[in-house]
């Protein structure tokens, strides 16, 4: 517990080796290998269908539930707070349930639909606390209030008693973050957390996530197709294309000196302020011809 999080820990908290995930005959993730270090933000970027979401669902072991997804091969070595290392790919369902929400949490893309419409938001956060900690409802509600303050929800006392449909998208995403962080996880996976939000709210949520990483010390794995988001929050970047990791490196290396054509194509898809100066009509983005499409 007294571990220092100041410098990036040399030992990874999560180390994925040769992960292969299939849906029937389709291979969604093919031999992914990467590390996640405590306190860092790792961005996984790529276009739709490149396997980035499946990677995150595999780490949560949610990919096999209700779909035909299957983790065929590979290891996902996760370091528990007491130093013990477990392979997430080998755990059974009840052991995995202990880790979900408690050690590894996840935020989803759609804040509008990821909260249960029939319960108050405070109730839902309190329930998440009670799932993993042996506390009564009063303590759990107190914790929910504390989390609402942490994610900077205004009037937290009133908001606890509100239903999801009474909140805006940005507020709901804050509730999701509060819920995800309520049990002090060491890893937070955010699957396109800002895609469904408008730009000003995106900036607020990203700023919030950056601050929270500093206060909680959790490692963050953020999945996105938006290179603007990557530049904003990430320390390191993994670029995925067609189920494979094509490039990885620090955010500076990726932006300054991309090695792969595909990475360059992704970067070129970000509109630059002023790039349309002097044009009468909007022009199409330049594409790198050799990039796989």
């Amino acid at each position, binding site marked *: 517990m007294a571990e220092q999080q100041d410098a990036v820990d040399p030992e990874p908290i999560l180390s994925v080796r040769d992960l292969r995930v299939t849906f029937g005959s389709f291979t969604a993730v093919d031999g992914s290998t990467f590390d996640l270090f405590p306190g860092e933000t790792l961005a996984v970027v790529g276009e739709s269908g490149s396997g980035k979401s499946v990677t995150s669902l595999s780490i949560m072991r*949610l990919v096999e539930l*209700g779909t035909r997804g299957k983790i065929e091969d590979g290891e996902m070595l996760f370091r528990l707070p007491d130093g013990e290392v477990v392979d997430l790919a080998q755990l059974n369902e009840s052991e995995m349930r202990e880790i979900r929400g408690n050690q590894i*949490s996840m935020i989803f893309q759609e804040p509008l*639909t*990821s909260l*249960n*419409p029939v319960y*108050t938001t405070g109730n839902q956060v309190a329930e998440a606390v009670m799932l*993993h900690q042996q506390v009564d409802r009063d303590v759990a509600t107190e914790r929910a209030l504390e989390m609402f303050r942490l994610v900077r929800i205004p009037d937290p006392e009133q908001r606890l008693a509100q239903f999801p449909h009474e909140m805006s998208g940005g507020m709901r995403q804050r509730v999701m973050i509060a*819920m995800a962080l309520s049990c002090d996880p060491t890893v937070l996976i955010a699957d396109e957390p800002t895609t469904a939000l408008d730009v000003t709210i995106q900036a607020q949520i990203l700023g919030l996530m950056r601050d929270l990483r500093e206060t909680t010390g959790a490692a963050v794995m953020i999945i996105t197709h938006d290179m603007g988001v990557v530049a904003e929050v990430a320390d390191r970047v993994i670029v995925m294309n067609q189920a494979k990791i094509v490039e990885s490196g620090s955010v500076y290396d990726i932006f300054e000196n991309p090695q792969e054509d595909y990475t360059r194509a992704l970067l070129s898809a970000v509109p630059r302020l002023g790039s349309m100066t002097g044009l009468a009509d909007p022009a199409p983005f330049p594409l790198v011809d050799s990039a796989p499409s």
Partner: protein
Amino acid sequence: MTGLFIGNNDGGNSDGDGGGGGDETAAGAPLGREALRLFMRNRAAVAGVIILVGVIFMTYIGPSLYDQDPSRIIARPLQGPGTEDVPSFGTDYLGRDVFAGVVNGGDTTLRVALVATLMIVVIGVSIGAIAGFYGGRIDTALMRFTEIFQVMPALLFALVIVTLFEPSTMVIAISIGIVLWPSLARLTRAEFLRLRNLEFVKAAQAIGASDARIMFRVMLPNALPPLIVATTLVMGTAILFEAALAFLGLGDPNNISWGYLIGQNRGSVLGGWWTVTFPGLAIFFTVLSFSLIGDGLQDAFNPKLRGR
């Protein structure tokens, strides 16, 4: 019984619902006051509630106000209503008081309906929830099992069960439960299939909730509106089944029910219309009240009518 249609207490009462939030994706957002308002606006449904309250009053308070033994012979047989010295609904083929029968017959009928409905809900919702939640082979197996029950002629099947055992109130209720649960199972499955892919179910898994918890605490409250409506309708059907069984002579001989009264007097339909008409009207109004209430609940839970 009233608890049934006020229902959905899981969601709690929403304070300050305000009728806003027209962007709800899942049906059954906080209901409470808004649902009550929509229900009250449906006049037929309110009439249904009044009829049902009347039936319950007659069944449970009536016997103490009209203290007559329905199985005692009190006058000459088949005396029509209005005959002197004869109770207002006349006498049946043995000279028993028809009005006393109607007043006392509701208890058995309602009890059978309640037990059968409880059974239908428990079996139907459990099987439908498991099938819809897990999908795949479990779903296929459970749905084939459900279809076995569904392809058999329901009334005939119930008849066979009652004949095999004894025509006691409990056996009758259970036999009705056994033949009527498949429709509720299929409805529950369909609702769960719809909810299964919504993000909040995934989110519940991601915070480490167990399968049972997700099914019954997360998904079921969201599936309640159509299930409550279906339950009220199935209750009416259960009453009709009890009447049909009793009419065919498979009622509980120790307990008077409306269907039993009709069955007993089926030989005197032409000579004494009142012997079957009054118990028949009692069944008619009870089933009608459930149908009207079910209809009103459909309105109450319809998100498109909210805020209008």
